[in-house]
Every structure is written in C-alpha cells, then in structure tokens.
C-alpha cells in the first residue's frame, strides 16, 4: 500500500476513534497514564503544542498589519530589498532574471550558509547575461528578517547562531516551524491574497531596484527552496500581472498547496529527493494536491504538462543529506549540491527540450513533403504554360518569405512566380510586400510559446516556431512564418499597388519595387487553370498491376473493397473545353496526376482511380496546377465544374421547404462520389425569377461545413462515433468564367482554424487550396457543403456620407483579424479548440463585430443627416433596415444569453486557448452561444435566419469527389434539431 494511503487510513481511524462514544474517556485515561510515566516530557510537548498554536495565531499578523497600514507609512529602505548575487558586467542586456527565495529555515538577510554556497556556485555557472537576485525574506511582506524584528530579534539571533553551529539542534526546528506557518498563511484562502501580494511587491521592488524594467518582457525565474516554493507560486499571478513577462518557477523540495494558480506559470519544475520528508507535507496537507480534486490548479497544470517532476535520487531535504549538502555524495561522485546546481543551471540555460524537439512522429505536413510535385518550386512553377487551354490563376502569384529576425520591417518578402502583363520582368524576384489596413496595426503581438504550445509541437502540431520570441509580429509575418519552411503560395487580390524603387536603381534583390496590398493574401495552390474532361489514364505498368494484386490479397476481409491499382501519375490525356462550341473539343493536354502521400492514418487525400469514368467527369473538371517543365501540366488541385458554375439542378422556394432542404435533405445519407447544387429561396418565387436574380458581379456570403471520414479507414477523430465537423465563412463573387463562358464564381474561405498537424493555416484560403488540393485539400476525403448566400442588404455596399461601406467587406476584415490572432494563438504560439472558442464560435464572433461596427458608425450620424440620408436613397435605407432586422434575429439565435459572452460584446479578448484555463467559465461561455457550438448547427442557424428574411442561396454539396475510394465513406456532421 502506498505510504500516503496508509497515512490517510491512520487519520481516518483516529477520527473514528474520537467520534466513538466513550472514546473521550479512553483518551483521557491514556493521557493520564502517559503523564504518570513521562510527566515532564508530556508537559513539555503540551507546552510546545500550545506555543505552536500561539505562534500560528500570530503568523498572519505581519502581512495583515502591513496591509492595514499599522506599521506606519514609511517607505521601505533600499537596504531591505533583495540584491544581486553577483554584480552585472557592463551594459549587456539581461536574458533572464532569477529570484532566489530561500527555504523556511532562513532567519536573516543571509540565506542559509548552504543556500549562499549554492547561489555563489550557481552564479559562476550561469552565463553573464543572467542576473540572480538574493536576500529576499520569503516570509516577510516587509522583507524584514526575523533577526531584525522589533520584539523578538534577540531571541531569533540566538536561535540562528545555535542552529548554524549545530544543524540538528532542536531549536532550529523552531525556526522551521515558524516559517511553515508562513507557508500556511500564503496558502490560506483569506490571508493568502494579502500575503502573496505583499511578497510579489517585495520581489517586484527588488527586481526593479536592481535594474529590471517591468514591461520589457524579460523572463523571470523564481527559484524557491522548500517553503520558498509556496511563496513563489503564491506571488506568481501578481508578478505576472505587474511585470507582464513570462515567469517560471523552479521548486527545490518545495512545500506548496495545490490551490496556487500554477497555470499562470510558464512552467513549474519541481525537484525532489527520494528521502525528502519535508516536501511530503505538501501532497499530504493540501487537498488541492490530492488526486481527489481533478479540477485543482495543481492537477490541471499537471494534465497540461505545465509541471515537470524531477527526481534528485536518494537526497533528503535540509542538512545533513539535503538538496544543498556539499558534504553528502551521490553514487556518481557528485555532491548533492553539485547535482542541484547542474540541474538548475541546465533548466535555466538550455533551450527547453520541446523547443528543439521535432514531432515524435512525422506529422502530415512532413509526410506530404515527400510528394515533390506538390512542393513549391518557384523556378518550375513559374515556367511557361504548356498549352493555350491553360490560363493564369491570377495576376500576382508568388511565395511569401519570412524576413530574417534582424531585417524585419513589418512586411514580408514576396517571390514573384506570376506577374501581370507589364510586370513580367519581375518574375523570380523577391519584392517587399506590405499590407496596409489600420485594423491590423493593433494586431501585432509578441510571441512567446507557452509550454502547452511546445508540447503541441512535440505532439505533431504545425506551429509558427520560427516566430518564437519575436516582438510585435504582424499578421503578414505570421502568415509567412506559419510553417517551418517558406512554402506559402499566395495570390494577391486587387488592388495591388506597385511602388517603384525610390532610387531607381537596378532591381537587385529586395531593391525592386514594393508591393502594397489592402486585402489578406489568399493562400492557394497552382498558378494556372484549365477546364478539361479526362480521357484516358496512363497504361498500367506490369509492376503496378502486380502490386495491386498483392494488396488485393492482403485485404482478406472483403475483396469487393480491395483497392484497385492507382493509375500511374503520367501521362493522363484530357481534352479542354471550348467556350466557342460549348463542347469538350478544344486542345489536348498531357496531365500529370501525382499519387498523393497518405496521411498518418493511412488515408490517401485523393485518388485518380476511375477518374475518367466517374459521373463528375461528364461535366468536366477545372484543374489547377503548375507546368512540369517537360511539356506536361501537374494537376495539383481539381474542382468539378458542377461546383464552380451557376447551374442548379433544382429550385426550392418558400421558407419552410427551403429550410427543410437545408436542414435535412442536403445532408441526408451522403453517398461517396456524389455532388449536388440546389437553389433555395425564402420567398415564394417561380423558378425563372429565382434564377434571374443571380447576376454577374453579385457578392455572396459563403457558409462552409465539412463532415467526417468513415468507412473501413475511418478517421480516428470519429472514434467517439460523433462527427462535429468544421465551419467556416467565405466570400464569393459571381462572374462569367472565361474558360467556359458560363456564370460561375471565385470563392475563398476565411478559415478560423486551430493549429493542426496538416499545416493548414488560419486565414484566407482559396478554394483551390482548401478544398480542391489533391494533397492538402478535403474534396477527396470529406463530405462538404458550401452554401452561397445571396442577400443584397448584407452584400451590397452602403454610401454613408460619401464613404462606401460594405458590411461584407467589414466582415472580411474582422475575419482577417480573428484569423491573424488564431495564427499566433494570441502570442502563445498555439490555439486549441474549446467550447467557447472554436471555428464556428469565433467566426460568428467576427460577424457580430462587423455588424456592431456599422451600427456604431450609423449611431454617430446626427439624426437629421440620417433622415436626409434615408430620403435621398430610399432603397438603400430599406436595405439597411432589413439588415438591422436580420442582425437582431441573428443575435437572438446565436447569442441567446448575451451576458455570458462578454468577449463578443467587447472588441477583443484573449482567445481561451483550452478548456483547462477556466473550465467552468469556458463551458458557460460556450453555452452562452450554444447554437454556434456545433459547426453544422451554426451554419443551419444562420441559414434559417437568412431564409426567414427572404435570402436565396445556392447549396452545393459534394461527397468525397475524385477517383474511386471505396475504403472511405462520408459521415455527415452532427447537428441538433430544435
């Protein structure tokens, strides 16, 4: 039985005994018998206990009196503050400040002799840019040593002398006892807040007096021995607030409660020897340290990997044989002190282990690098297009390159892969790219990875590690630095301003023109696009045939689902669409369809098996990619024409029927390989009128939802049997698509996406990248819905006193801000999904921010001007009224308990990075906007409101499109009926 359990049982037995009838008499008899035999000893122990109670009673007095101002208003003289253990050399900036809080044995300004030894040697070991502050009385809010106290100084000096001469003397225990009581004060729920603030003030003042600049962000380590551990953890949250810097705690045999806000620490390193009896008081006496309290700070911090328990081997607590004993030796010949110094200096100086760690297993992002045809290669990708049937995807396409840390200016480099006519000489050059939007200036933030983020890196997440410890990282930098390599291919949306190089010099690297954009660069795939129908796959080689036979045999369970052979990647033939004839009789193309690398669960993101015979091939595919440099074209991304053109199969009008379709039929029994496009309208319109509304130039709001991967290769996320899915907003513009001459759209998403192992980056994502990409996209594996909402009050622009205002545009900017925060996890390096913060909650938070912005602006108009404005353009005013009505209803639907989401009311709040931060609060907040909790329910809720206000929408559904992939099946995301 573990020791702790034995002790608990013993305590329980004692309690029972005390409660039993007659027990009092028994105890009395026992006491009398003891007193009879060992009279003096028993009396002494009784006196000791009484003294203990008395001193316990007065222990909080110093802190309380200090708070109440009983000790006068005098300023603390600088002599009473902590001082540097070793002088600093020159003007070298300090990398880290270490504050030493001695054990509960400390009585005077001098730490225990062994503590002084430890500090001296540690100072010698650490590099010169570390500063150690010592001399802080870890139990006195006025930093007054016991030996200098008003009333009992003489007594404590005597005890101290005696103790140093004879470490084992009983009287030394008196000091220990006195200070254990101070630990109890710090852990007390009433006195703790006062005492800990007082200690935090002593620490802050000592740091500042020695040259620390609060707000500089220089990290601080609290090094607490024994009771110093509790003092460190108690002062921690206050220190964090005042210093605004990361604070970590190293506890050497620390005795501390579990109710301290350990989560506020960067990390807690707890070093304990196996023979340490004092440290054990902590896990025993403080219920927050018990496993029975899973929600205590201690247990939550442990679950989140914020605590490292480090064993010191056969080491005790105090002298002799303690953590700081220089005369006791380990089996490897080092003294206990030496080992402690080794460990502490390693923690302080080394980069934290996880920071250098590669993911334990290659994540999907690393796996996919093996697909060389999907890797970004600017020289290849910018080559001449092999066929006239291909047209460039956009004017400006290029790669984002993160500047070096010492060459930053707030923008990033843009390596031009494709430039519009007139600028083609810039191809291959690196230009400065700047993004100007006043909203974004406020979004620059310092990045310091939390331990949780580093843990997530080790677990395989793709995080912006390159930006760790950078100051004021801009949204553009976070986009360029989001992945370990500079492999972010983007399109720049118009308007792109080209600012000439002021010197007019020859365009050297970085000295060419500068590019200035207003919108977030669009993450994309490929540089050119064509509309084709696949004709014939490449002939199967003998090797491929036999490989297929082997794998068919291996899959013993069901031969019907055994994979057919994946056709070779090259050369596929396809014929291009000719808009003049309206048929697939244009140029022939030779295409390369590289076989994608399966993800860590063995699921291939796309296949090309039977592509030429699949139903979607009849209408044709838009293929997007890059020239292969050998006369062929690499298809990196594909989207079926049926999802890219305005040609609904059906029109459903009327609120009820439209809603029924959106809510039920659209997701009813999804079948792999199928796609549909249905127009729904909330008004009772005939089919021709419903269709005729949709005109080139219309702006559309997009609601995107995806589901899960089921079937034989079911994804592990579905292990619980429930698919929550994912939600995103997007925008689209109706336009005549030049390759087909049909009405179609350009569509991009605004992905509020938490950090993930796939390397998907939160931000504006092109449909080519997010959906169609055969390596990185979801079209081949997931069921998806893109609902294109046409609702002019939302999408049209308003002329407010000469300003062109568009709510959709404001919304895009709010989403750009939200996704920029997601990319950096508000400076912690990681965003995790929780009930209050996830894709759908935060997307909708951005929507409300946009609507509130417009309302604010209108409220600022003076009423007369507003009336004039309404009379001037009644149609516009009518649209606005409709919009405000929509807003009210959306708010009621999504935010029924507005009081629970103060973060949606204010402009900005820290992203709750995980449930562990404030579990109940987070859950409550999530429930405050419960309809946005589940992605599909959020989409449904928004759609229902839109339909009620007479919007029309094109519901596009696709289930695992592309080649045949019988091992997987689409799973619809969960929603709730109401």
């Amino acid at each position, binding site marked *: 039985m573990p020791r702790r359990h034995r002790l608990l049982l013993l305590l329980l037995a004692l309690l029972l005994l005390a409660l039993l009838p007659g027990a009092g008499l028994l105890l009395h008899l026992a006491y009398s018998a003891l007193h009879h035999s060992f009279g003096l000893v028993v009396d002494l122990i009784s006196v000791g206990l009484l003294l203990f109670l008395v001193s316990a009673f007065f222990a909080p007095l110093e802190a309380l009196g200090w708070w109440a101002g009983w000790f006068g208003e005098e300023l603390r003289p600088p002599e009473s503050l902590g001082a540097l253990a070793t002088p600093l050399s020159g003007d070298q900036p300090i990398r880290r400040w270490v504050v030493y809080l001695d054990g509960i044995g400390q009585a005077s300004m001098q730490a225990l002799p062994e503590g002084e030894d430890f500090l001296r040697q540690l100072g010698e070991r650490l590099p010169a840019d570390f500063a150690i502050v010592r001399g802080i009385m870890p139990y006195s809010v006025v930093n007054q040593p016991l030996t200098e106290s008003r009333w009992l100084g003489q007594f404590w000096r005597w005890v101290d002398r005696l103790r140093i001469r004879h470490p084992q003397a009983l009287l030394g225990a008196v000091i220990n006892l006195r200070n254990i009581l101070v630990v*109890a004060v710090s852990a007390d729920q009433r006195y703790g807040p006062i005492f800990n603030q007082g200690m935090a003030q002593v620490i802050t003042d000592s740091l500042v007096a020695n040259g620390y600049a609060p707000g500089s962000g220089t990290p601080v380590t609290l090094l607490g021995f024994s009771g110093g551990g509790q003092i460190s953890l108690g002062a921690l949250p206050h220190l964090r607030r005042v210093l605004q810097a990361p604070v970590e705690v190293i506890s050497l045999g620390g005795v501390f409660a579990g109710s301290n806000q350990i989560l506020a620490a960067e990390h807690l390193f707890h070093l304990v020897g196996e023979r340490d009896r004092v440290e054990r008081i902590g896990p025993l006496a403080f219920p927050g340290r018990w496993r029975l309290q899973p929600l205590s700070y201690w247990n939550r911090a442990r679950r989140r990997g914020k605590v490292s328990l480090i064993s010191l081997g056969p080491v005790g607590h105090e002298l002799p044989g303690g953590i700081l004993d220089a005369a006791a030796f380990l089996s490897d010949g080092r003294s206990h002190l030496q080992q402690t110094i080794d460990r502490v200096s390693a923690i302080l100086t080394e980069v934290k282990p996880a920071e250098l760690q590669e993911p334990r297993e290659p994540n999907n992002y690393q796996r996919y690098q093996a697909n060389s045809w999907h890797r970004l290669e600017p020289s290849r990708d910018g080559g001449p297009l092999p066929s006239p049937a291909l047209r460039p995807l956009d004017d400006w396409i290029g790669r984002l390159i993160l500047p070096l840390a010492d060459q930053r200016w707030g923008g990033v480099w843009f390596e031009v892969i494709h430039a519009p006519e007139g600028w083609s000489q810039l191809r291959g050059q690196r230009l400065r790219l700047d993004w100007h939007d006043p909203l974004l200036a406020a979004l620059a933030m310092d990045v310091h990875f939390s331990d949780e983020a580093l843990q997530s890196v080790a677990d395989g997440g793709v995080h912006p590690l390159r930006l760790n410890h950078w100051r004021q990282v801009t949204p553009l930098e976070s986009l360029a630095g989001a992945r370990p390599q500079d492999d972010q291919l983007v399109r720049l949306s118009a308007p792109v301003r080209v600012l000439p190089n002021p010197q007019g010099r020859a365009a050297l690297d970085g000295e060419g023109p500068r590019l200035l954009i207003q919108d977030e660069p669009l993450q994309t795939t490929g540089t050119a696009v064509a509309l084709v129908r696949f004709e014939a796959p490449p002939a199967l080689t003998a090797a491929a045939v036999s490989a297929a036979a082997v794998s068919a045999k291996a899959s013993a369970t069901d031969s019907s689902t055994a994979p057919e052979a994946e056709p070779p990647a090259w050369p596929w033939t396809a014929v291009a669409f000719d808009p003049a004839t309206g048929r697939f009789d244009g140029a022939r193309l030779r295409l390369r369809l590289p076989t994608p690398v399966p993800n860590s669960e063995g699921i291939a993101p796309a296949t090309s098996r039977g592509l030429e015979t699949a139903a979607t091939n009849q209408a044709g595919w838009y293929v997007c990619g890059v020239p292969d440099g050998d006369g062929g074209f690499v298809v990196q991304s594909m989207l079926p024409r049926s999802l890219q053109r305005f040609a609904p199969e059906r029109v459903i009008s009327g609120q009820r029927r439209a809603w029924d379709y959106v809510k039920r039929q659209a997701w009813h029994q999804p079948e792999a390989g199928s796609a549909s496009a249905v127009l729904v309208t909330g008004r009772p319109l005939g089919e021709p009128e419903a269709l005729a509304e949709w005109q080139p130039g219309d702006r559309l709001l997009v609601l995107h939802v995806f589901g899960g991967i089921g079937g034989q290769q079911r994804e592990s996320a579905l292990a619980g049997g429930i698919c929550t899915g994912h939600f995103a907003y997007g925008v689209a513009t109706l336009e005549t698509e030049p390759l087909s001459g049909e009405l179609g759209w350009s569509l991009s998403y605004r992905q509020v996406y938490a950090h993930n192992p796939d390397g998907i980056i939160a931000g504006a994502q092109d449909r080519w990248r997010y959906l169609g990409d055969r390596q990185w996209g979801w079209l081949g594996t997931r069921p998806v819905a893109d609902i294109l909402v046409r609702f002019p009050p939302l999408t049209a622009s308003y002329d407010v006193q000469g300003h062109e205002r568009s709510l959709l545009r404001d919304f895009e900017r709010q989403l750009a801000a939200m996704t920029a925060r997601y990319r950096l996890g508000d400076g912690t390096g990681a965003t995790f999904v929780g009930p209050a913060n996830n894709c759908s909650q935060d997307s909708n938070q951005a929507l409300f921010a946009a609507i509130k912005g417009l309302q604010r602006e209108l409220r600022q108009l003076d009423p007369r001007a507003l009336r004039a404005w309404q009379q001037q353009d009644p149609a516009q005013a009518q649209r606005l009224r409709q919009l405000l009505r929509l807003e009210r209803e959306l708010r009621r639907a999504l935010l029924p308990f507005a009081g629970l989401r103060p973060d949606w009311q204010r402009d900005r709040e820290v992203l709750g990075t995980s449930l562990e931060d404030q579990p109940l609060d987070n859950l409550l907040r999530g429930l405050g906007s419960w309809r946005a909790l589940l992605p599909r329910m959020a989409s449904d809720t928004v759609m229902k409101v839109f339909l009620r206000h007479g919007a029309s929408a094109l519901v596009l559904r696709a289930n695992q499109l592309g080649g045949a992939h019988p091992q997987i099946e689409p799973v619809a995301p969960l929603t709730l009926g109401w």
Partner: protein
Amino acid sequence: MTEAQEVITGALRFDAHAYLYAAASGPLSRIGIWIALLAGLSQAIGQAFILFVNQVRPLRFAISLVVEALLFLSGFLVWATSTWLVAWLVFGSRLPLSLLIRALGIAHAPQLLAFLGALPYLGVPILTLLSLWTAIGFVVGLVAVSDLSVWAGFSSLVVGWWLTNALQRTAGQPVMALGRSLLDRAAGVPLINDGRALEQMLRSGQIGPDRVNPQPLDRSGRP
C-alpha cells in the same frame, strides 16, 4: 474547578447534566449571557482579518471587536426569543425565557474557541467543526432544560432561526442598519464584508496599500 468551568466543559461534552445544573444554580443565572458574549468576542477575533482588510486602525480595531461581540449577543437574544416563541406556540412548551437563554448561551461554549478560526490554513475547517459542535449543543441544551423531544427541540431552533432571519429582512431592517452603522462608526471606515467585494478590493489595481517606488540602483549591484 469552578462551577462555571464545569458547566462549560460539560457543555462541550454534550453533557445534559451541565445544563440542568446551571438551570438550578442561582449564582450561574447570568452564565448563558456571559458565554454568548465571550463567544461573540472569540468569533470576532477569529474573523478579524476582515477588519484588517478594511484597514482599520489598531485602537478602532479593538473597539470594533467589542462592538461585534455586543452585536453578536443581541442577535443571540433575538434568536433565543424567537425559539422560545416557537417552542411555546407550536409545541406548547411553557419554558421560562430566561432558562432558555441560559441553556442556549451555555451551548455556545464551543464557540469560545472560535478565535482559532484565525489560524492560517487550519482556521476555516476549525470554524466549520465548531459550528457543527455548537449546533448539536443547542439541541442537547434545549432538550435538557425543556420537555421537548429531540425533533421538537430541533424544529424549534430551526424555525426560530428562520423567524429571526425573516425579521432581520423585514421589520428588523432599521435595527440591522443601526447595528451596521454602529460597527462602521467603531471601525472608522465603512466595512466591506461581502466576499466578492473583498476579493475585488484585494485585487484592485495596486499591490499593497502604500506602493513603494524604488529608485533603480546602479548596475554594479550590492553584495
């Protein structure tokens, strides 16, 4: 051991004889009042941190403790009277009021230790334990001096307590306000004792009452 001591230790042990003895003893007629008063003082000491948090000066601190004890005593008397009313009107027990006050006052004996509530960390559980102890004492004391059954005694106490609370919130409001203002006058500051407000006060902006602004020293540091 004096008589008073015996009564108190007896009450601590839930000894019904202690109550009967006190009820019959002439010299102990005021013992209930005294124990309740001292218990009030002990409780005030146990909860003194509220006075500290409100930054009450030392002399006023002492006066406040006494006022709190007196307020506690008057609260007790009201409660005892309500209990007496309930015992009489509901359960038909014709127990003299003075006897009931004496018994319930003696039952406050465990609260004499309430000053231990000031102990760091252990204080809060000790207070909980004492409350339980006292509550049992009330029932034992009441049953000992009256002809009520255990359940009738218990019900009288609970209903009496509820009645007191209802009174405090309705007709007794001016009296309560008077008590509060007495306490505030004694303390010299309007006392905040609501948990949430206290927490806010502790967290409000600055650290500590007299914020020190130290001058940065030269970088050479001091030994």
